[in-house]
């Protein structure tokens, strides 16, 4: 990726899935693209003034207004007759939680914008606090495990379903571990004449705590365990499901991560583990992940 539109020299952690994800997205979108990003790891690691890693026009305003800002960009480009891709790239905190109001507005108004969420399942930029995207039982700094706690007590918010409820014509999930699939989905989304939402599983080394060399393997295990199904919806219909050839037990995925460590130390967590297994099995059955 020597010609990547995200230049090397950015300040993301070694082993972070985010820059790899962004490079894949930009690679598929090409140079005729304007990116809008909310506040987050992506913003702070790529744009310390007077430096910038962005080789496409890039705009950051606030933590929760990316969808409104991008709406303004899109309306103005349309007014000028410009056929330029408008892509939002933001983390799960701004996507699932604080930006929900303006995300909903953008989806509902039907702007031709691709929204890419690099989903690392917590507020990583501020030090691993729980977000609405944090999965069940995950240890974060605001849902720590302890004698009275097994980590996050709630399941992950179903953001793709929220996008679908807005009749967003293209909604998909992807993973940094499946680059061909990810690139194809970006290209397909950009062909859609309306909003699209792409949620990419992007492991965070400091928040999930894993060995830097295992990032891709970990992301692949999320898919192979059934916890992160790769799905594709067009006009509300499920049109694509990535089949799992060799399903893996959820423990294989969970055990590689510090954020689930407590589940394997405490005997009372057996019930929690079985609930996570149920979630994976439910996904497999619901989406027909395994032939």
């Amino acid at each position, binding site marked *: 990726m020597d010609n990547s539109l995200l230049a090397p020299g950015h300040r993301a952690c070694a082993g972070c899935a985010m820059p790899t994800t962004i490079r894949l997205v930009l690679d598929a979108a090409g140079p005729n693209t304007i990116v809008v990003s909310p506040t987050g790891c992506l913003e702070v690691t790529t744009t310390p003034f007077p430096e910038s890693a962005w080789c496409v*026009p890039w705009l950051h305003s*606030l933590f929760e207004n990316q969808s409104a800002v991008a709406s*303004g960009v*899109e309306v103005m480009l349309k007014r000028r007759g410009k056929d330029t891709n408008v892509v939002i790239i933001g983390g799960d905190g701004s996507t699932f939680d604080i930006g929900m109001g303006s995300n909903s507005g953008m989806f509902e108004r039907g702007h031709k914008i691709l929204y890419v969420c690099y989903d690392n399942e917590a507020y990583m930029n501020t030090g691993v606090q729980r977000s609405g995207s944090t999965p069940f039982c995950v240890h974060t700094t605001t849902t720590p495990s302890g004698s009275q706690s097994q980590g996050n007590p709630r399941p992950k918010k179903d953001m793709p379903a929220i996008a679908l409820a807005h009749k967003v014509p293209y909604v998909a999930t992807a993973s940094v571990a499946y680059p061909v699939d990810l690139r194809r989905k970006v290209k397909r989304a950009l062909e859609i004449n309306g909003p699209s939402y792409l949620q990419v599983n992007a492991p965070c080394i400091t928040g999930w705590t894993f060995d830097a060399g295992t990032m891709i393997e970990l992301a692949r295990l999320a898919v192979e365990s059934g916890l992160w199904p790769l799905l594709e919806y067009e006009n509300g219909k499920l049109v694509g499901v990535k089949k799992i050839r060799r399903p893996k037990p959820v423990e294989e995925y969970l055990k590689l991560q510090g954020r689930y460590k407590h589940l394997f130390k405490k005997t009372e967590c057996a019930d929690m583990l079985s609930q996570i297994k149920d979630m994976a099995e439910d996904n497999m059955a619901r989406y027909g992940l395994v032939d």
Partner: protein
Amino acid sequence: MSNNTANMKVVEGSYAIAHAVMCCRPDVISAYPITPQTHIVENLSQMVANGELDSEFLTVDSEFSALSVLVGVCAAGGRGYSSTTSQGLALMYEVLYNVSGLRMPLVMNVANRAMGAPLNIWNDQQDSIGARDVGWIQIYAENVQEAVDATLQAYKIAEDRDIRTPVMVCMDGFVLTHVYEPVELLDKEKAREFLPDFKPEHILDPARPMTFGAFADPSTYTEFRYQQFEAQLKALPKIEEVARQFEESFGRYYGGLIDGYFLDDAEIVIVTLGSVVGTVKDAIDAMRSEGKKVGLLKIRSYRPFPVQALRKALKDAAVIAVMEKDVAIGGEAGLVTDLKAAFYSSSIRTPIIGFAAGLGGRDITIKDIRKIVEKAEAARKGDLSEFEFLALRKEIL
């Protein structure tokens, strides 16, 4: 102020503002409804629907999004417009700082209204005075005509390359937004000559990729803030210059930064802003006929605060009485505090007394203004009063 009465029309204030906005040719209007701003944006929607105004009108999910949309519009090279009030302005608060920090020359009419709790939809100026430090220029209008004219002037000031600072045109909610009064609507062609198309030097363009909204660490942040501060200082002569240019084109002028009424020989000067100026002028007429040397200083530009102009205009006053529709709870109020600060670093030692009045839409009467003058006369004799709430109904406390 001279008006060509042949072109005068009796219209609602909000219609007059919408018409002025039309003459400013915004690319995108983005707004969220809130009383008493609604008639402005309803009129604009209708103008777009009728094809009279070639703008995109975005109906958004909140005031927060309304202003955020315009960040994108501006970065993509467009002229943006919004209008709000009160709680809506408060919901925009984070974006207000962002817009000025990004040096985006947006213009917004603020239909001044009280802040809750308790909920109150009527006029005071707590909303915009409370937002005095967000980096926007603030111009206050006395009547609908001034609000109309200030709206066109605002874009010219905001978009000036040396200024590049957003402007709020503040007009009292209901009192000016819902009043029907004779107004000379702007001539579209003259407005176009006065305000050329917006041509920013830096825009989002794949042919010339640029990064907007990078973060600044302690080694550069201060200089960004200083540049904003400096731009507002440069706006002081620019506001005056634009007011004079407007006079040349349209024949109307009512002060650039400040204006006066019986100011030259006034011993007691009432300093205020907004639509109450008209009432104060009536009170002064009555008191002058009784031989009282009372005058008025109207603040047109509250941000930038015209320190030098105020010192010059008020240096001969015996007592200055500030009346304003806002309170800085725990302190005094915005204007009186700023005025005291402006004078303390000069050699002027005129007594300054302050009053909160007209909160939440309560009428300010000529009797109230006479009360202020009585207090000012006492202050002149050495009986200086502390900041107080005018016409406080002590019986219901």
